[in-house]
């Protein structure tokens, strides 16, 4: 399966040139771009690990791409995403978020059903990969 979180997951994986263009769009809008990675892609795992701090005051996407490639060297077997933060009043949250790196093999999720009264079912979504300890998922180091 393919985890389709983020803005561009239905398109073929973005090239570095395409990633740079999106980052430049964010910087042009005054948003700070953050690189985040995880090996627990549960749909409600909000807090991926931060690769450093959001890059405030940056003008050129090349700096972000350099950091991305550093991050890939260490966590190339995990999901990596770009998140752009807009600090303007009335928003003060993420404006754009998209996946820029993913494991070679994505085993996906299992849906567990716990039957309750009145035909109710309690659902639990579990990542097959996350059954293993952090760092050992997706055949990684």
């Amino acid at each position, binding site marked *: 399966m393919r985890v389709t979180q983020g803005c561009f997951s239905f398109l073929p994986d973005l090239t570095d040139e395409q990633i740079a263009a999106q980052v430049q769009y964010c910087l042009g809008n005054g948003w700070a771009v953050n690189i985040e990675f995880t090996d627990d*892609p549960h749909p409600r795992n909000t807090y991926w690990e931060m690769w450093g701090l959001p890059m405030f005051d940056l003008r050129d996407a090349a700096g972000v791409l350099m950091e991305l490639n550093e991050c890939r060297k260490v966590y190339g077997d995990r999901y990596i995403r770009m998140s752009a933060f807009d600090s303007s009043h009335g928003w003060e949250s993420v404006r754009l978020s998209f996946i820029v790196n993913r494991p070679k093999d994505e085993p996906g999720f299992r849906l567990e059903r716990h039957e309750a009264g009145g035909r*109710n079912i309690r659902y639990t979504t579990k990542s097959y990969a996350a059954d293993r300890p952090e760092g050992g998922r997706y055949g990684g180091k």
Partner: protein
Amino acid sequence: MNVQSMTVRGKDRYKSGVMEYKKMGYWEPDYAPKDTDIIALFRVTPQDGVDPIEASAAVAGESSTATWTVVWTDRLTAAEKYRAKCFRVDPVPNSPGQYFAYIAYDLDLFEPGSIANLTASIIGNVFGFKPLKALRLEDMRLPIAYVKTFQGPATGIVVERERLDKFGRPLLGATVKPKLGLSGRNYGRVVYEALKGGLDFCKDDENINSQPFMHWRDRFLYCMEAVNRAQAATGEVKGTYLNVTAATMEDMYERADFARELGSVIIMIDLVIGYTAIQSMAKWARRNDMILHLHRAGHSTYTRQRLHGVSFRVIAKWMRLAGVDHIHAGTVVGKLEGDPATTRGYYDICRQDFNPMKLEHGVFFDQPWASLNQMMPVASGGIHAGQMHQLLDHLGEDVVLQFGGGTIGHPKGIQAGATANRVALEAMILARNEGRDYVHEGPEILAKAAQTCTPLRDALEVWKDITFNYESTDSPDFVPTATPAM
């Protein structure tokens, strides 16, 4: 038009009998509205031979303190404060016999935080007043002091996006079709296919409540099976608007509670449940971390005709106060009524923190929203993937695009239809962010994306010639060059 005050003052004002409204203090051309006044703009069409100033003063009178004759009991009150004051009457450009009447209302006339109370005055008796041929409420200026007495949207656009973990693109939805007749089991099938294929939301239609072919509990259970299956299949948060519209508040609360218990992120209501019920559900939604979708069922009965009724821009303002998170606000390019400029005005009312006066969009007043949450506009009705560049251009990024037929009617099935829409959308956002002229290069961008996506290729082929080009019945009265004084 703006002649002198004719108000009779002192003892003579209260002599028993009938007096013209414009003499009773409802026409005050020198009145300067206070920052705390509510201002209403009406389109007044007087009966033949009726003086437009008198007709407009009558609207002010009948929507505030007046009755048809002088009453001495006025003298027991601070009557001058409570009288609504018409302070300006302009002929409508290029529309003989129609006048724009600006009327100011003191804030003390209204109960805080109650749409029912506001509307009982402003669109109460006055719309049936005999000396008028027709009357339309075009716009309202709501003072901050009044706005702050309302909760506003239960969730708001930003928090909705945070909860769904979806940023930087319009959300995608589809209304389950056929809207009537599917069993719960079959209905959930449509939801599953559409969500797994790439949509973020599915939606009950306005008249799907609890009928012989499908009772509400059955629908909720099958829909949540579909939502959870699709979440597991994609790793994304998914939702389906479970319509809790019912005959009584008790029934609606019961259905909403069940939706929450099942883990739904969103519920929906119809406009026809009434303003008070809408406010109650908005409070319920805030208490229960639920996104609240409003389907504007019934609005066209009073919003569509230009001469009589209430403009949708006013309904949108009331709904933002009342506290819904989603509101259907037009598509421009789809099958339902919607002039581009007028629709832009509605979208601004939903999403901006401050609406500047923009007559060319039908927005007559500066409107501060005082940090009230934003409402997500929803575009639904006769739209398809081939229009993606136009939709993005007209409607922007913070909108739900609902492709019902445009998903379910895909020749290769519902999943393929959903995928076509999602790929078209992502390709267009990517191109826009890259700085391309996506409005003009739209068809080219879609064709390129279709090279690696067969469902999109099929969709573009099937619907390539579908457009809905009809004259709009409700376009702005002012062209962009007009600069009227205010």
